[in-house]
């Protein structure tokens, strides 16, 4: 028989306001097994915890029930308290009489009655509790970073810096991500390439980091500390180890009309290409959809010009299997499609562009070699209109826009406007805004400079429509401050398109069993306190895959994710959750039902010899649970027809005891 102590918390007036705590502790005193029952203002306070410790010692308690807030809040606290007093932490049960009682019911009799019932259920459960000790599992000291943009790069560098090997998987032929496409960065206006490419080189030269470019994650199995990952390295038809990146092939390839995705289709590349001069790894890739040799076997020019002999038309996709202890998701973002926003004439005029396209247009390595020329006729635009919040904060247009604020547009638009005015003072620049949001160090100062020093015209209001007319774009917008409708004949219109998570994020989340919000951003384990961890143990979040972010924020989150990974990999063993499934071998049929529902593959079978009830011996197939792999969901316990499989901490008899206590 257990000796149970009951501790009813007032939580100030949070509980005591709606629950007669004295009545609860009195009522529970008479429950079976209860030898001590009390109530106190704040059980979680030091004084409250000491009260519990003293009672455990004084009354030789074998189990305790704390009637307090949600176990999600303080179960861990009280388990530690119990442990400090020499009681097994799993002999603690919490009756949730705050979130699920005092806060949702109004009158004291109702609240008190329910609190007593919840307390009785917890007592009934503790009566059947048994001390549990957690198992341990080893940690593979290697991390996987999915995505090779600035987020992935920074995370990988930081992890490698701590001495752990890291692999980066990037779907594109080069790492660098979106930042490699940018021209200047706010609020300091240093050039993106100047600060990014040294980091890319660091990655390439770091012997702890392996880069799997032009690759994708195909399968993830296992669990924290022990992930088994299959990576598909797509055939690039060039031997990476031999290619010197000289670029001879990319100059001689006769297939010249492939839209260049690095410049967002504003110019063309060859069928064999290196995305940009500072690509890492700097090796060529053949686009199988454009290469004549791969399509119909007619060409072979690149192989002829390659002095190193790196071209390999027979290269196959390769599957790499590797074990990892931690996985960092850094899949980043993309601007949303502007095709559906008819009012801005994006599909009708080449001179209506997105901000990312504008970045390429002003970039010295871009399609116009950095000269600001409009795409339609390569003439210098004299009037430019920037439109903010295109598709952002768009609650009514779920099929084309996003409800959230994309966060980075206000700043990069100020940057664009400023750069234009700086280089081409003869150009008039208008920015239509709803609100200018500039929280961040030196951000508002930056925006004010655009207005005050560079003379950018900020107009509070939205653009209603853009109509191409001759060589001009007729922009009709409202100026809410002047309360007038403004009409501007613009040469170029730049749309600050909302950003959305990369399309690869959703299938990846499924593979990782990591949760996502409705916008396909990864969910963090806690929005405030655990912002870089996914709720799935061992999976961490870096950069815009978790929500819109600018570069400084991405880099700091990348570092935070890295430090979490380092903290995990620094451990030799992980202590598991002791609330796991365990089969009673005497009752196990060996029928495999449990194995089939286990999401972790934690169940295996062995043949064992048993003494049967009729005094014969027999060899029977029985289930075994791998305590490091089992996560304790309990799916097997219901699949098991004989009830041989039970869940520690949530045993059938315990749950039935709770049911009985509630239904008395």
């Amino acid at each position, binding site marked *: 028989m257990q000796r149970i102590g009951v501790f009813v918390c007032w939580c100030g007036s949070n509980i005591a306001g709606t629950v007669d705590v004295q009545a609860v502790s009195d009522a529970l005193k008479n429950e079976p097994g209860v030898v001590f029952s009390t109530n106190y203002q704040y059980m979680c306070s030091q004084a409250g915890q000491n009260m519990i410790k003293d009672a455990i010692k004084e009354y030789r308690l074998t189990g305790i029930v704390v009637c307090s807030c949600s176990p999600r809040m303080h179960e861990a606290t009280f388990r530690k308290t119990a442990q400090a007093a020499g009681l097994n932490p799993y002999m603690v049960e919490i009756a949730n009489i705050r979130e*699920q009682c005092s*806060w949702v019911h109004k009158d004291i009799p109702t609240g008190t009655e329910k609190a007593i019932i919840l307390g009785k259920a917890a007592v009934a459960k503790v009566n059947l509790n048994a001390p549990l000790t957690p198992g341990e599992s080893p940690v593979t000291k290697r991390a996987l970073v999915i995505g090779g943009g600035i987020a992935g790069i920074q995370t990988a560098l930081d992890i490698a810096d701590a001495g752990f090997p890291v692999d980066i998987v990037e779907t594109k032929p080069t790492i660098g991500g979106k930042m490699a496409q940018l021209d200047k960065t706010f609020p300091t206006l240093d050039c993106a390439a100047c600060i990014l490419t040294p980091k890319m080189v660091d990655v390439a030269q770091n012997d702890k980091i392996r880069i799997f470019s032009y690759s994708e994650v195909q399968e993830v199995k296992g669990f924290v500390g022990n992930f088994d990952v299959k990576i598909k390295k797509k055939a690039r038809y060039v031997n990476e180890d031999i290619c010197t990146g000289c670029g001879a092939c990319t100059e001689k390839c006769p297939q010249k009309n492939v839209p260049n995705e690095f410049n967002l289709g504003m110019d063309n590349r060859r069928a064999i290409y290196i995305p940009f001069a500072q690509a890492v790894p700097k090796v060529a890739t053949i686009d199988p959809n454009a290469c004549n040799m791969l399509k119909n076997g007619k060409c072979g020019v690149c192989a002829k010009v390659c002095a190193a002999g790196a071209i390999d038309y027979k290269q196959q996709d390769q599957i790499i299997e590797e074990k990892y202890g931690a996985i960092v998701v850094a899949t980043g973002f993309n601007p949303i499609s502007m095709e559906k926003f008819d009012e801005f004439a994006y599909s009708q005029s080449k001179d209506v562009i997105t901000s990312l396209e504008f970045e390429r247009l002003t970039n010295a390595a871009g399609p116009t070699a950095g000269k600001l020329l409009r795409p339609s006729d390569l003439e210098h635009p004299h009037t430019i209109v920037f439109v903010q919040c295109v598709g952002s904060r768009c609650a009514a247009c779920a099929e084309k826009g996003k409800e959230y604020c994309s966060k980075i547009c206000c700043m990069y638009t100020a940057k664009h406007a400023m750069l234009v005015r700086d280089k081409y003072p003869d150009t008039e620049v208008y920015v239509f805004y709803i609100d200018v949001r500039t929280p961040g160090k030196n951000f508002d100062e930056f925006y004010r400079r655009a207005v005050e020093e560079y003379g950018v015209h900020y107009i509070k209001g939205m653009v209603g429509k853009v109509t191409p007319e001759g060589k001009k774009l007729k922009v009709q917008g409202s100026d809410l401050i002047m309360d007038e409708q403004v009409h501007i004949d613009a040469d170029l219109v730049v749309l600050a398109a909302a950003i959305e998570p990369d399309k690869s994020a959703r299938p990846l989340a499924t593979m990782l069993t990591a949760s996502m919000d409705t916008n396909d951003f990864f969910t963090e384990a806690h929005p405030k306190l655990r912002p870089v961890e996914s709720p799935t143990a061992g999976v961490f979040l870096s950069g815009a895959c978790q929500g819109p972010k600018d570069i400084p924020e991405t880099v700091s989150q990348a570092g935070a994710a890295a430090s979490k990974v380092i903290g995990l990999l620094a451990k030799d063993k992980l202590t598991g959750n002791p609330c796991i499934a365990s089969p009673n071998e005497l009752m196990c049929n060996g029928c495999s039902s449990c194995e089939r529902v286990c*999401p972790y593959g934690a169940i295996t079978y062995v043949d064992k010899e048993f003494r049967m009830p009729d005094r014969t011996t027999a060899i029977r197939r029985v289930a075994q649970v791998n305590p490091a792999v089992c996560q304790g*969901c309990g799916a097997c316990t219901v*699949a098991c027809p004989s009830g041989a499989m039970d*869940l520690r901490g949530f045993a059938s008899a315990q749950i039935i005891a709770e*049911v009985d206590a*509630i239904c008395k």
Partner: protein
Amino acid sequence: MQVNEKKPLIVAFCCNWCSYAGADLAGNNRLAYPADVKIIRVPCSCRVNPMFILRAFQRGADGVIICGCHPGDCHYTSGNYFTRRRMAMLFSMLDYLGIEKERTRVEWVSAAEGAKFAATMNDFAEKVAALGENKRLEDLRCKK
């Protein structure tokens, strides 16, 4: 409503990761629902054995509701998919035996859906109350 009418008794099995947290959120936001609802915490909705449900009814529960993560969002990947099949089969069987189908329910409530939790419980409690006492599955000898 009569003064002495027995209040319905509702047992809610809530998965630890979504629905129990959803219930906590309902509490945090002070969203009221009837005190008739008593929550039992399970790690995952797939831990709920049909035996627990029948036991609750046998002992006098008037309604049993199982709440889990939305399909696809299970903390354990697939637990709630098994719950969905098991409960679909069990509920269909109870209906086949002539038990009022409004007494059982499965609802997917995420940790962010405190309002949905409260609304679900209000609605379920109302429907169960309208049915009156559970006589068909109750074991009279379990009554005090």
